[in-house]
């Protein structure tokens, strides 16, 4: 179990992690979600004792990482994929790590087989693809058969098959009763992998709940409407208790409206009664992606200017 209490980290005058508290329980996959720059990696580095916190503590099974006697047998971690000497083979990289813990060479062979790198184990990692490096990182994390796993963006650079493999591995490890804590900036990825979510933005905790609950709590159902007479339609719908927001578009076609508070049949009826032409009437299913954007929109570190696109905003997948 991972327990983070009042954890903060300051870089210069910027608070990268801002008094964060949460627990990661065993037996399930906990997704650690946030936009880029939200402080996910920093939090993981603090939990792993690589960085020193400004305030607070992080413990794993009740101990600070630095106090673990044989850390790799307790905690497995995957940080950035390319964190290995390009001149060393995967086998050598894993072997020196195993030696620090007094683990036998059979463990190295076992994790190489687990990640499917047995055939290239003696090749220098400098020639590996990002996906292969990522697999070496997973192998290193699994070396000591740990009870707790921290994986920072493990599907980065993997092909669809590799992504499927990592998902299944995480689920399997959680099913075995291990603690699995996995970060991602991709909602869609977490929606299919995580049972529980810890969501942060700008270093602050935004949500700590089940994935299902997060979607339900954070999504409002909306309807996308397109009409050449958008202004009249908008006032009509507002009069009937709806909330109308224009969706930015490119070009001169009618601007679509996002309507909440009214369902599609009701909107259709109102438009028909007023004799308004509709070009589009699409119920929008809220996705985790939307819920996520909704909750973190105020905290995005590197925000691009408002997107201008003709595609319906946040179309469900």
């Amino acid at each position, binding site marked *: 179990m991972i327990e983070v209490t009042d954890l903060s980290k300051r870089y210069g005058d910027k608070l990268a992690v801002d008094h964060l508290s949460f627990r990661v329980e065993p037996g399930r996959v906990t997704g650690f979600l946030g936009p880029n720059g939200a402080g996910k990696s920093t939090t993981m580095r603090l939990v792993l004792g690589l960085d020193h916190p400004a305030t607070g503590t992080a413990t794993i099974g009740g101990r600070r990482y630095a106090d673990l006697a044989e850390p790799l047998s307790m905690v497995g971690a995957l940080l950035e994929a390319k964190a290995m000497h390009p001149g060393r083979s995967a086998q050598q990289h894993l072997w020196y790590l195993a030696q*620090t813990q007094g683990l036998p060479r059979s463990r190295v062979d076992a994790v190489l087989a687990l990640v499917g790198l047995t055939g290239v184990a003696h090749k220098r990692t400098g020639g590996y693809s990002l996906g292969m490096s990522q697999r070496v990182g997973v192998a290193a994390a699994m070396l000591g058969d740990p009870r707790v796993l921290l994986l920072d963006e493990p599907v980065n650079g993997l092909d669809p098959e590799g992504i499927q493999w990592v998902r299944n591995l995480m689920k399997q490890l959680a099913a075995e009763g291990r603690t699995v804590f996995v970060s991602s900036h991709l909602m869609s990825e977490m929606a299919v992998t995580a049972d529980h979510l810890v969501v942060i933005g700008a270093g602050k905790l935004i949500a700590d709940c089940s994935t299902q609950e997060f979607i339900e709590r954070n999504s409002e159902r909306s309807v996308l409407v397109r009409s050449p007479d958008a202004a009249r339609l908008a006032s009509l719908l507002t009069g009937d208790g709806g909330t109308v927001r224009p969706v930015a578009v490119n070009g001169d076609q009618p601007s679509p409206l996002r309507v909440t508070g009214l369902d599609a049949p009701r909107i259709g009826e109102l438009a028909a009664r007023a004799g308004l032409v509709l070009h589009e009437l699409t119920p929008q299913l809220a996705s985790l992606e939307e819920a996520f954007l909704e909750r973190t929109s105020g905290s995005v570190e590197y925000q691009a200017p408002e997107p201008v696109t003709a595609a319906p905003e946040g179309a469900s997948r």
Partner: protein
Amino acid sequence: MTTITQAPRARFGQLLLAEWTKLRSVRSTIWSLIAFVVVSVGLTSLITWLIAENWNQANAADRAATVADPVATILGTGLYFGQLVICVLGVLAISAEYSTGTIRASLLAVPRRLPMLAAKGVVLALLVLVVGELVALGSFFAGAALLDEHAPVALSDPGVARAVTGAGLYLAVLGLFSMAVGALLRHTAGAVAAIMGIVFVLPIIANFLPGSWGQHVYNYLPSVSGAMLAQARQAADQVLSPWQGFGVCCAWTALLLTAAFILLKKRDA
């Protein structure tokens, strides 16, 4: 979660094995050592041969110094350049961990941090000591054979065996000194530049300092003092004996290693 039993401290042996695996599994180590052997023995042979060839044109003071302590002259030729390779090897042993990101894997495995750098230092120093002793011995025999006509010297002469073994000892300490600089700066190019400045540039500048204090500054520089152990006896213009000089070099190294240990513990990795 089950209680974690504190492992016995016999673990340092495991760390030594791990650091040995790290050191021997990168090509830069092999190439550095090959370069070290070639540069040291090759330049010792070349330079002592030139000294012997030009013996009659050399000034009297130089000739007198060579005759007084031939082993110092021999070990001061090729190994003076060879030590550069040891500096690079020492820096790379730690700076490459930072440049490649391996340091994070290493510190996750050894979160107390200091045992990792200590084990690395022990393995590096032992490797440089063994290779350094062999190269010092080879350089000595090559140089002694070439100088034999003008400045005969044998391993059994007073102080000579100590000077030859002393060259290896100095190189081992220089390797540690370089590793400490690498650990402090955490950047290969910066650390190599710094160590070049300390080993090669500072002595040249200090040489220009006037008077007795200038002489003291020069003699107390890390590389100048350490190399004194590779002489059979204290020269007339030196203020330290060979062992005193080596002690000064060790003190500098201990100082830098202490700083490196403190910062390794304190800094974010």
